[in-house]
């Protein structure tokens, strides 16, 4: 492959004491935020409506200029860069998708590469590659946005943001406008994609469950973007910093913890020689396994390498292990 999708790996973003005060407002919308977003990670900003998530994110690509503080990407102060030049290195996915209705899908995706002077054949190859990456048929390139469903448009939005292979992506509630099933599907695809591209991604959502699923790290924000806790999903679930964070986790914290734990990361027992046990694939989570146990009334399930009755059995999981997993995580931080 001459042009690999994983071309430019992510770069570290660092915010230092960043404040935004909109003109004519008493309180700043964002107050003295400092955080490091490590290269190649997905950091999710989660917080109530109006707490400043979008403002914080748009200061990174300078659609909003900070009132004070510094932002660096890969060590370079972004305020020293030409704003348009700077934005070309940052993929931006907005909640309302914002595909250009008068341009075909290929021209929506290819717009920036073309402006950057890529040859026609290179742009065409890039469009085809990205459509495949986001799971859309190649002939959709010739369609207009209104000929696509909302979920399909959202994928094109992601493809368009990736077009010029930016090291950094900003995603403002990218899956907000879809039903739960499509959303779940898009999230899974996105995670698969990110395993390939390894960009640095700032991801905004209101939905804590989405944050748990998508984030390598989560920043729980209070109003004015003040950071209540910034840590991995596991650490936040295990030890919420205060009641505010705990209220975000909501009910069912233990189950959420189990949902983060994949069966492949759990020590399995050897498979018993009895037949007729419920089966589950190793890609599923411990929570899925617990659900299956409850549904089937069995305190042990077989873990298989793949779907189907003749798939290889890797081992078995007992209810005892599930309880241990929950307690172990909860017990010592």
């Amino acid at each position, binding site marked *: 492959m001459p042009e690999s999708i994983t071309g430019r790996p992510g770069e570290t973003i660092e915010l230092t004491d960043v404040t935004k005060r909109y003109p004519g407002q008493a309180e700043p919308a964002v107050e003295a935020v400092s955080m490091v977003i490590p290269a190649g990670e997905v950091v999710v900003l989660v917080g109530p409506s109006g707490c400043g998530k979008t403002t914080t994110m748009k200061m990174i*690509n300078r*659609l909003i200029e900070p009132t004070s503080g510094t932002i660096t990407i890969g060590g370079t102060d972004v305020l020293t860069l030409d704003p*348009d*030049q*700077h*934005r*070309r*290195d*940052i993929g*931006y996915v*907005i909640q*309302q998708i*914002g*595909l*250009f*209705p*008068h*341009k*075909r899908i290929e021209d929506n995706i290819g*717009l*920036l590469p073309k*402006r950057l002077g890529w040859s026609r054949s290179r742009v065409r190859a890039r469009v085809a590659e990205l459509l495949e990456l986001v799971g859309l048929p190649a002939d959709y390139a010739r369609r*207009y*946005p*209104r000929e696509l469903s909302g979920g399909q448009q959202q994928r094109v939005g992601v493809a*368009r*943001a990736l077009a010029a292979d930016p090291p950094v992506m900003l995603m403002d509630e990218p899956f907000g406008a879809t039903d739960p099933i499509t959303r779940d599907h898009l999230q899974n695809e996105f995670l698969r994609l990110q395993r390939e591209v390894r960009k640095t991604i700032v991801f905004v959502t209101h939905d804590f469950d989405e944050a748990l699923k998508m984030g390598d790290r989560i920043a729980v924000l209070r109003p004015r973007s003040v950071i209540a806790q910034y840590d991995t999903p596991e650490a936040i679930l295990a030890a919420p910093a205060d009641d505010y964070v705990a209220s975000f986790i909501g009910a069912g914290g233990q189950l959420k913890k189990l949902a983060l734990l994949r069966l492949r990361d759990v020590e399995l027992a050897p498979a018993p020689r009895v037949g007729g046990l419920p089966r589950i694939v190793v890609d599923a989570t411990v929570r899925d396994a617990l659900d299956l146990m409850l549904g089937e009334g069995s305190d042990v399930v077989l873990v298989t390498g793949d779907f189907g009755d003749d798939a290889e059995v890797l081992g078995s999981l007992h209810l005892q292990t599930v309880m241990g997993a929950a307690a172990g995580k909860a017990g010592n931080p």
Partner: protein
Amino acid sequence: MTAPVTAQRPARAARGTGRAGLLVRPALIGAGLLVLWWWAGSQQLDSIEARNVNGEVIGSQVLEHVELTLICTALTIAIAIPLGIAVSLSRSRAGRLVVLSLGNLGQAIPSIGLIVLLALVISIGVGTAVIALVAYAVLPVLRNTMVGIEGVDPVLTEAARGMGLSRLAVLFTVELPLAVPVILAGVRTALVLTVASAPLAALIDGGGLGEGLFTGLTLNRPVISVTFGVLVAALALLADWLGLLAETSLRPKGI
């Protein structure tokens, strides 16, 4: 938030009724002209009438009229669209207000008043007629250009800015193409307005179908005034139809 401005709506009907719907208009105009020709031919013409209602005079006046209209419309577009773009780009509320009030003022003055006034101030002749007609037609194009650009979903301009397009690139790749239907609707209005007001040019020696019309009126020869009146109406309808054609064919695909 914004000054109250109503813009001419772009035509959608032509789309709904299909291309065939677009052919009805010229057929009706043709039929009307046939009736006119039959009626004028059946009249007993005196010498004054015969001097005015004949192919040569009609032909040359129609040509003058069309010429005058084309020049005026071209000038109107050349002035109004760039001005509308500039005002939208500057995002200046004051500029917007000034331009719109001037435009409104131009249109509030009756066209006949404007033409006579300008003739008094400047001089009589085609040049003055052109100035008056353009002043009168600029507003719809100007207003629709501004409204068309401002009507583009801010989400789209933000998406374009966010991918690193410059302000000008956003204008040319996103805002203007999406404003085309609205701008063209304004051009169509201006075109019809010009065709229909252009007879007034004859009052100040500007030529066109107004010559025949006013001759008929002043000499009390209904055959002459009806003939030229119907011709003006037919031209105006034709201009409107051409505008519709342009709107249908130039509307960007996908919207």
